C-alpha cells in the first residue's frame, strides 16, 4: 500500500495538466470574486476575525477547486488497465485491496496539494497581514474538518465513477452533480445541496465553528424539499457529517474492490 501511495502521489503531483487546470481555475475564481477576493474576509464584513476569514476561504476554495479535484482524479483508477500495466501489478504478491487504498490515498493527496496551497497560502498571507498567528491554527482546524472530509468522499467518487462510464462523460456529470448537489440553494429545486450528504463542509462550518449565514440564520431552509436530510447544524451533526463522508468513501472503495474481484475471475 505504501509503495503504491508513494508512486501514485509522485506520478500525479508531476502531471503538468494538473497544475495548469488548477492555475486557470484559480485565476477564474479570483477574477470572479474580485474585488472581494482582495479583502481578508472575502467581502463578508468580518475581516479581523481569523476564524471567519478561514471559513470564508474554505467555502470559496471548495466551490470551484473541488470540481477540478474530481475531474483530475477521474482517469486515475482506469489508467492501469488503459496503459496495460494492470497485469504486472496483479501478478505481484501484494494485496489488491492494499493497492487500491494506496492508489486512492496517493492520487487524492497529490490532487489535494494545490487546494491546500491555495487555502494555506491565503492563511499565511492573512497571518502576516493581520499579525495574528492563531490564524494558522484556525486554518489547520478548518481544513481538517470543513475541507478534508469532502475531499475524502469526492476522491472515492471520482476514482470509482469511470468504472461505470468513460472519464469524459463522467467529468461532465461530476460538474453537474457538484452544482446540483452542493452549490445551488436548497429551496431552488429538490437537491442534495446543504444536506448531510453534501460535500461542501457546511455542517462542519456551522456546527463546529458557529458560522452564521449572512441573513443570521444558523442553518436550514424552511420551504426546501428533502429537509429531513438537513438536521440542525450542531457539533454532533457536524461530526456525523464527517462520518458520513468517510463512510461513503469507504463504501465506494469497497464496491470498487468487489467490482475488480468480480472481473478478475
Amino acid at each position, binding site marked *: 500500500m*505504501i*509503495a*503504491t501511495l*508513494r*508512486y501514485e502521489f*509522485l*506520478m500525479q503531483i*508531476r*502531471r503538468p495538466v494538473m497544475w495548469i487546470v488548477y492555475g486557470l481555475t484559480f485565476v477564474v475564481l479570483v477574477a470572479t470574486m474580485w474585488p472581494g477576493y482582495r479583502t481578508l474576509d472575502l467581502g463578508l464584513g468580518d475581516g479581523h476575525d481569523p476564524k471567519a476569514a478561514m471559513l470564508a476561504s474554505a467555502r470559496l476554495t471548495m466551490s470551484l477547486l473541488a470540481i477540478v479535484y474530481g475531474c483530475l482524479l477521474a482517469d486515475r483508477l482506469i489508467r*492501469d488497465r488503459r*496503459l*496495460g*500495466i*494492470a*497485469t*504486472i*501489478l*496483479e*501478478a*505481484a*504478491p*501484494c494485496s489488491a485491496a492494499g*493497492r487500491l487504498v494506496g492508489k486512492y490515498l496517493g492520487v487524492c493527496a497529490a490532487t489535494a496539494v494545490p487546494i491546500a496551497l491555495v487555502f494555506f497560502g491565503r492563511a499565511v498571507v492573512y497571518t502576516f497581514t493581520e499579525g495574528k498567528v492563531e490564524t494558522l491554527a484556525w486554518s489547520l482546524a478548518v481544513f481538517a474538518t470543513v475541507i478534508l472530509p469532502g475531499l475524502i468522499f469526492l476522491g472515492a467518487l471520482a476514482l470509482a465513477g469511470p468504472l461505470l462510464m468513460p472519464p469524459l462523460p463522467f467529468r461532465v456529470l461530476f460538474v453537474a452533480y457538484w452544482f446540483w448537489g452542493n452549490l445551488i440553494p436548497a429551496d431552488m429545486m429538490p437537491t442534495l445541496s446543504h444536506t448531510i450528504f453534501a460535500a461542501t463542509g457546511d455542517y462542519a462550518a456551522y456546527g463546529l465553528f458557529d458560522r452564521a449565514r449572512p441573513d443570521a440564520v444558523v442553518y436550514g431552509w424552511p420551504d426546501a424539499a428533502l429537509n429531513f436530510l438537513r438536521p440542525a447544524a450542531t457539533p454532533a451533526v457536524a461530526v456525523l457529517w464527517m462520518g458520513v463522508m468517510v463512510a461513503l468513501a469507504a463504501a465506494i472503495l469497497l464496491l470498487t474492490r468487489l467490482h475488480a474481484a468480480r472481473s*478478475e*475471475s
Partner: protein
Amino acid sequence: MRIRLSQLTKTYKGGVHALKGIDLDVPTGMYGLLGSNGAGKTTLMRILAGLLRPTSGTVLLGGHDVTTKEGRLAVQRTLGYLPQDLGVYPDLTARQFLDYIALLKGIDERSARRRRIGELLEVVALTEHADRKLKGYSGGMLRRVGIAQALLNDPRLLIVDEPTTGLDPEERIRFRTLLSRLAGERTVLLSTHIVEDVAQTCRYLAVLAKGRLVFQGDVGALVAAAHRQVWTVTTSGAAPSTGRIVAALPHGSGMRYRVVAPVPPDPSARPAEPTLEDGYLALMEAAAPV
C-alpha cells in the same frame, strides 16, 4: 519449479471455451508453448500467474495449488511474469518503475532494492538509459524493462508471453539469447506463435490448438511429426494445390515450393528434411485440417 496441470479447463462468460482439459507437465529449464493466435496460450499463462481462475482442473506450481489464495500468493512470490501487452507508466524512469515493482514484490530494504535494480539494468543493457522516462523508450527497450521487472525477485518460474512480437530481428535475437541465459535453474515458460523463437531456445515444448493440448515432448519429436511429409516442388506451372505451402522461392524461370503434406503434392515432388516449423505445421494440419 515444476508445473503440473491436470484436466485444466477455462470457460469464459458467454460460453467461450479457452482451455479444454489440459494435462501438462513442465520440467525445470526453458520450455516452449506454441500455438496460433487464439489457441489459449495467454489464458494458460494468466492462470499460471494467478491472474485468472480456472473453471476446473488442478494447477500445481512447485507443489502450490495456484487456485487457492495461499497457493497463489506463494507462487507469486517466486514468479516473474512478462505479459503479452506490457504496459508501463510513461512518466516514470526505468529505475523508478523497477523500484515501484520491486516494492510491490516485497523487496523492502532500500539498499538491496537498489543493488538488484542496478544488476538487472546491467543484465538487460539499459544502465545508461535508466534515468530516462519510459515514454522515450523503443519497443525493444520496453521489453527489456519488462524482463527486468519480471526478474526483480529472482523468480524460480519465469513466464514470458509473446515476448518477441513486434521486435526487429536484432532485438528478437538479443531477447532470445537473454531468455536462454536466464533459464539455468529456473523454469522459463516461453509462450509464442513464432516457431523460430522456440527452435532457438527450447528443448521441450507443448503445442496448443483451439484450447486443446495437441503435443508435448522434445523438439526432435515435433520435427519427427513431419517426417515424410515435407516436399519440395520445382515448377514453372501452377503452385501445388494440396498440402500447406511453407515457402516459395523463385527458381530459374519457375518457382520452388516447400510443401507440408501427408502425400506428395505433385508427381515431381522430392522429399525434404523437416524443420521444427514443418513439424508444427504438420501437427496443425492434423489437428485442424483446412
